[in-house]
């Protein structure tokens, strides 16, 4: 019966190929996008990722002529939403906001997903971590912070996000870079930067390594001081806050970032169209105004550059997580 079997296989493959050709020609005929696009946001409504995602969705609609619906898929430290983006049908009608956590979750053993499981479209934002202390803290510079933690390991507590979150790595990596143990300042997990800053002001913790922007209201209120920013250069919105290099001579840098990506294997037509539209959105005065107004850092890296960015970020984060003992 081998012949019959072969025949069957052949017939089957012919049908599949035929159907596939039919489907692809169908797609080729209709101009992308011909129906609404879904933008998955892996974080909750109201957060920074959600705010930028909704802004982009609103502006993309004008460029593409189709509504872009924002869908929040929250939970599991971002795993749920990132999986939803990666496993969506790769037809260009589901894209999402991919955040820095994609380079962390797999090291923690929460998922197999990495940046390689996506079609990168563009990176649009990166926010460097800052070092925030209470206004009445005796620490006047990043140097003081490092010296105090080194002198008394385990005494001073830090916070900013959950255990093993991006701001935790910022603190741990900085300590390690300064020659202290990565856990010399024990981490008090919080649900995000806002509750951590509340703890800081209430006197519950001593240092919060979230982005500087997240504490701008408290800085203006005179409750919190920012001592340094862990980036290449000072921030436009906070010219008085020195870089970590200037403040303590450390080369350590850490930033949270956000970009738009789709599932792996998206049709080229869709990817191209999306990146062109997204670039227009990025350069629009509305978007620039919005990002500057909120204090979000603007960075633009399309396609392949975004892929390289993700790979580098992934490697750097993996190094810190292993050193801190958070990697599986």
């Amino acid at each position, binding site marked *: 019966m081998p012949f019959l079997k072969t025949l069957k296989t052949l017939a089957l493959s012919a049908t599949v190929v035929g159907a596939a050709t039919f489907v692809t020609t169908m797609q080729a005929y209709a101009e992308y996008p011909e129906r609404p696009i879904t933008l998955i946001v892996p974080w909750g409504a109201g957060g920074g990722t959600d705010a930028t995602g909704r802004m982009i969705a609103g502006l993309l609609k004008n460029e593409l002529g189709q509504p872009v619906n924002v*869908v929040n898929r929250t939970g599991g430290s971002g795993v749920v939403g990132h999986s939803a983006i990666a496993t969506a049908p790769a037809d260009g009608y589901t894209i999402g906001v991919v955040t820095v956590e994609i380079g962390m979750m797999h090291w923690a053993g929460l998922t197999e997903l990495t940046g390689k499981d996506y079609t990168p479209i563009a990176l649009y934002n990166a926010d460097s971590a800052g070092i925030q202390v209470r206004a009445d803290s005796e620490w006047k510079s990043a140097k003081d912070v490092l010296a105090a933690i080194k002198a008394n390991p385990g005494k001073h507590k830090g916070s900013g996000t959950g*255990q093993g979150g991006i701001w935790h790595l910022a603190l741990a990596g900085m300590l390690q870079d300064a020659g202290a143990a990565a856990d010399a300042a024990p981490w008090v997990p919080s649900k995000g930067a806002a509750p951590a800053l509340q703890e800081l002001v209430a006197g519950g913790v001593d240092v919060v390594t979230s982005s500087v922007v997240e504490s701008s209201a408290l800085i203006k209120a005179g409750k919190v001081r920012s001592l340094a920013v862990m980036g290449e250069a000072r921030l436009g919105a906070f010219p008085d806050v020195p870089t970590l290099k200037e403040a303590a001579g450390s080369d350590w840098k850490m930033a949270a970032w956000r970009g738009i990506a789709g599932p792996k294997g998206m049709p080229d037509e869709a990817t191209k169209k999306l990146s062109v539209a997204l670039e227009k959105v990025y350069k629009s005065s509305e978007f620039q105004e919005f990002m500057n107004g909120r204090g979000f850092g603007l960075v633009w890296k399309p396609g392949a550059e975004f892929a390289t960015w993700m790979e580098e970020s992934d490697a750097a984060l993996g190094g810190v997580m292993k050193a*801190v*003992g958070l990697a599986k």
Partner: protein
Amino acid sequence: MRFNDAIFGIVLIVFAIAEIAYASTFPRLHGQDYGPDLFPILLGVAFAVCGGILIAKGWLARKTVPMVAVGDWAQDRGNVFNVALLLASIVFYILASSWLGFIPTSLLILIVLLLRLGTSLVTSLIVAFATTFIIHTLFAKVLLVPLPWGLLLPIAW
């Protein structure tokens, strides 16, 4: 369906043992004596204590409260069927809605349940269609909830 308290007590204690056993495999926090296992274990102990008291209470009341009393509904075959049909509809929606689409799934479930609960065919059809299209318009169109199109994708509006 009513059970004697002792049955619940036993269920709780079995659950507590399994839960504590599983929770104690959770890793501890870096350099600390407690971690994600602490709360589940405390809860397990609480379950076990409550289970113990329930068993004692149920045992004392065993003369008046039978171990299992299926409610009146279980005597009536029709009601048992209704419950099964309801649960099956929900499972059906979970399994089928993404490829069948919201509109066909909802129509099917509504028509079947309405007919089964004794509504006339014409009313059932009217109610099913009206409900489905109102929900679809409200959620998918006005509130932008991505209800699946499924089979109807080619004619999506």
